[in-house]
């Protein structure tokens, strides 16, 4: 081996050492699996509880993992992930997330763990159906005065229009009292 070959060999060793140093931590990240459970059939307005369990590759609970909860949603032409909230797993790798079912129809609730230096990312979802209809929220504006409502407006208008009808009745009386009969089209009686 000449001097040049020794230098080349040394360089290869250094590069290999760098590569090994880079790969080694990656190979240390453990895979994580998420499990989600929820009641499949709920009513609109019910409080839904989603239980999330996070375990590593050996089935051991993953504690203090931050789980993002979201639901795919569409509004007009836009679609995306609607964030519902986030929870953190306890020592047993479990977290409970609750939310109010506010949208009627089938829904998917997704739990996502974004990973950290120790664990890889994971995601799981649960499908449920929300039945029922109606408004969950009704805005209360102003002060409610007993007995005061739309009927006041209707009565007021009714009063005015009844008075108009009374005037019409007076007009028919005027017409009846007239000595001049209504002349047909083409009739004539000019004074001049």
């Amino acid at each position, binding site marked *: 081996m000449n001097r040049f070959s020794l230098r080349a060999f040394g360089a290869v060793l250094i590069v290999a050492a760098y590569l090994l140093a880079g790969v080694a931590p990656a190979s240390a990240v453990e895979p994580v699996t998420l499990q989600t459970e929820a009641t499949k059939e709920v009513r609109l307005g019910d409080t839904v509880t989603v239980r999330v369990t996070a375990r590593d590759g050996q089935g051991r609970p993953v504690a203090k993992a931050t789980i993002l909860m979201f639901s795919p949603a569409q509004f007009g032409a836009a679609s995306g992930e609607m964030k519902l909230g986030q929870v953190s797993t306890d020592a047993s790798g479990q977290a409970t997330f609750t939310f109010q079912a506010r949208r009627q129809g089938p829904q998917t609730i997704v739990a996502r763990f974004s990973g950290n230096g120790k664990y890889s990312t994971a995601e799981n979802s649960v499908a449920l159906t929300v039945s029922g209809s109606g408004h969950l929220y009704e805005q209360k504006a102003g002060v409610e005065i007993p007995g005061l409502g739309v009927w006041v407006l209707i009565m007021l*208008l009714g009063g005015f229009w009844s008075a108009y009808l009374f005037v019409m009745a007076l007009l028919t009386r005027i017409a009846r009292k007239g000595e001049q009969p209504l*002349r047909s089209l083409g009739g004539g009686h*000019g004074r001049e």
Partner: protein
Amino acid sequence: MEPVRHVEHFRERLERVALAPLAHSGWRYFLWVFFLAGVVGWGAYAFLTQYREGLIVTAMRDRISWGLYIALFVFFIGISHAGTLISAILRASQAGWRTPVTRIAEFITVVALMVGALMPLIDMGRPDRLLNMFFYGRWQSPLVWDILSITTYLTGSIIYLYLPMIPDIALVRDRLGPTASGLKRWVYTAFSLGWQGTPDQQRYLGRAITLMMLLIIPIAISVHTVVSWVFAMTLREPWDNPMFGIYFVAGAIFSGIAALIILMAVLRRIFHLEEYITPKHFINLGYLMGAMTFLMIYFNASEYIVTGYKMAGDEAFHFEQLFTGPLAPYYWFYALGGLILPGLLILFPWTRNIKGIVAAAGLVIAGMWVERYFIVVGGLRVPLMPYAAASYFPSWVEWSIMAGALAGFALIISVFVKLFPVIAVWEVAEHHEATVKEGAEEKEKTVPRRRLVSELERSHESV
């Protein structure tokens, strides 16, 4: 015997003058009508363009979504108060001098309401969507209140215009010449309801007019209050104002009187009504307008001092745009030209004549139109979010539709004055008869009194 002959002559002359416009129409009249019809046609073409292309042909956009049309709507509803309200108030207060001008005032009301009510439909771009107000309208919406109050007011105004016209329509029916067309004869006969002036008919008519007079005053006030609520019920800074209703009603009466004065002057000159519409009518209405001028100045001062002292929310932006910003020319024209100057013209005795009062009325009309414009546009210019204020200047389509609406207003009045007497003949004649009778009675009372005084003086001298 002398007063009776005087009354008869007065009535004959009055009938001749009042019915003359119905009998003859010169070439100038037809030219005028043709011109107005042309402008209306141009406005209709502009509207068709808007209907075909959409509201994009206007200058209204997402931030300033109301403009000339809504300003014109408020303006027309305002001048509609000329008639019914003023006529009803004067009738209720038994102001005898009102009789020659009430018909003109009532014409203005009905025509202004008809034209004004079209403006929101034009503003919608799709007039057919008006039906949505009936299908999906909510009782809580000021827009629904607006529709209800305007339709009630229009119906009431038509009835209130028609009732005092019945004896005059009968008069026209009885004076129709042999050459009158059958259709004309039938229309006047039908609308006169067989009026013969019998005591029963007079009693029923009197009752109907009194009832409508009492009804129309609260209706007219409510209409303009409700129109103001379309703005004031929102949370926009300059509109969110409890004074708005009072402001709008006062402004409506103010511009209504001005419109009445102008139309009175025009019809007086064209139809030679100088004997009936006298300087006294102009001066009396001028006093009313003057009182309203100073009331409006007071309202303005009160509003701007109270809000300007606190300068809360977006008020600073609104003040800036109004007093020194892009709307300043409009505001200062209104304040100086539409309020102060007319007030001075009425205040000074040497300008308190027909010319001065008509000039003041013209300034008031222009000023009030400008005020409606900057209320609508200025309110929408105030940004509700951190974005730059939008600008607005009406497009040719909007100007054309406005010209068409104004011409339509003039056209309907021009046709109207050729169909019905512009002066309430029977009311003027009755008022004149009553005045003459009162004068005669006064004379009878004063003659014996004078005689008694002279006898007493004589006896006193002899003692």
